[in-house]
């Protein structure tokens, strides 16, 4: 059973803030890597842009439309990976995925990575139907870094 607290936990202040005023929204200059993320369940789409300098993510941004969770997640994701090395960014991706899909007792080993603000997404875990919304931007990040040419889908 969901309590009202769980709903407040999903739609935290930080999430609502990033959903209403997404950071890094738009297209940056001199994009070196990009990917499109599609959630066929709801038709949400976002496009992720990266500018890499060697293996460091110099800048990142996104465009698109989506629910509060997917927009906030994309906003937090870009905020987090700017300035990080590719390997570090991928570690974050892995940690987020584990945080959202594994239960506490299964030992979601997210402690190796300090999730910082991304921690705000943990409320999504109690809403399995919304996990895809929260991971969409991260899948796009993985796809962009691997230079996949087809749009990444959450299915």
């Amino acid at each position, binding site marked *: *059973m*969901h*309590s*009202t607290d*769980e*709903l*407040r936990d*999903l*739609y935290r202040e930080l999430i*609502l803030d990033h959903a209403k005023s997404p950071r890094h929204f738009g297209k940056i200059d001199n994009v070196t890597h990009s990917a499109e993320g599609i959630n066929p*369940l*709801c*038709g*949400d*789409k976002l496009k992720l842009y990266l500018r890499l300098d060697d293996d460091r993510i110099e800048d990142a941004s996104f465009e698109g*439309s*989506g*629910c*509060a*969770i997917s927009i906030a997640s994309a906003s937090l994701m870009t905020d987090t990976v700017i300035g990080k090395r590719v390997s570090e960014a991928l570690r974050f991706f892995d940690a987020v995925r584990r945080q959202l899909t594994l239960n506490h007792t299964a030992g979601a080993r997210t402690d190796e990575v300090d999730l910082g603000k991304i921690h705000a997404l943990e409320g999504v875990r109690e*809403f399995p*139907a*919304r996990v895809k*919304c929260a991971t969409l931007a991260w899948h796009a990040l993985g796809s962009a870094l691997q230079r996949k040419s087809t749009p990444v889908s959450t299915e």
Partner: protein
Amino acid sequence: MTQPQKTPDASNLIANCRADFPALDQEINGYPLVYLDSAASAQPPRSVIDAIAHYQAHDHANVHRGVHTLSHRATEAYEGARDRLRAFINAANRSEVVLTSGTTESINLVAQSYCRPRLGPNDQILITHLEHHSNIVPWQLVCEQTGGELVVAPIDERGQVDLGEFDRLLGERVRLVAISHVSNALGTINPVKDMIATAKVRGVPVLVDGAQAIPHLAIDVQDLGCDFYAFSGHKMFGPTGVGVLYGRESLLEAMPPYQGGGDMILEVSFAGTTYNDLPYKFEAGTPNISGVVGLGAAVDYLEAIGMDNVAAHEQELLEYMVGRLEALDGIRLIGTASCKASVQSFMLGDIHPHDVGTILDHQGIAIRTGHHCAMPVMDFYAISGTARASLALYNNAHDVDRLVEALNKAKQIFT
């Protein structure tokens, strides 16, 4: 269109029918369930569940091919359901009632078996902008295969087909018209009888996608004058995986089989095969027997209540729901046709439909959110999706009140 009138005892029948649907009697997230997603899939009454269970427990065997008692019983149950379906839509002949896996298969059958052999590079299929993907993509496929062209009649801001444009687009090159009876995303009831009459004058056959009409309106395929009418069991309180293609006998006769296999043949040799008679020619393989039995029970259920009573109840409730929704600050109703089934799409301020859906589910209310498999309709309104509340015979004013209460809560969270 005349408004359906309730019979004198209808109010009681409808008010008491909710208890017939076991799935409605449960709590979701600590609240009594309010099910407003019947347009996606309607809940089955106890009688449908029991009919399927009884068949599985007592009568199951393969149909049309055994001399033993169970096979005979299974065949009787299966063919008996076909007879009830024929009467339910007033088809002239039982051979015109092809049992399929649902609306999607019914439409694909017509696309591949009727259109594909007939369509040439200069030919057109005419649809409307309101269609569900299942009444778009099968035609796109057949156009790709034949070089034909798909033509789309536009809609207006209220979600109604522009009949002037429909008339204009129905030109000499059109070989088939395929239109929804009721729009799944917007609830618009298309004036299909008039549209069919327009096509008839020009000698163009018409397929009607009736998936969303069958649970709401009394359907008479002869009165409509359509050539094909497709619908699904699970939208009309029956099981999933079963549906109907009604087809005019002369057209079905002239069509080649859609799939090959058992039951659709009279005689097979390596030199050639003689196909079975209608409707079996289009029913290859062992069918979904228990599903058809369940669908037959759903027909019985709806006939006991009376489709005019269902329609009258839903119209009252739709009016109430639209009134209450309109009174909400910041709501935008999507789909405001003058003639509508009990379906309402909407946007709540700038809250994404997906978030509305989660917050409502949290309060025990099931609605559909997203593009409703009608992306072109969403593109028309320049949105990615809507929240959609759909009402069925088992819903009541209290359900609508709970919806409005829950929407107010969503607004609070997002302010």
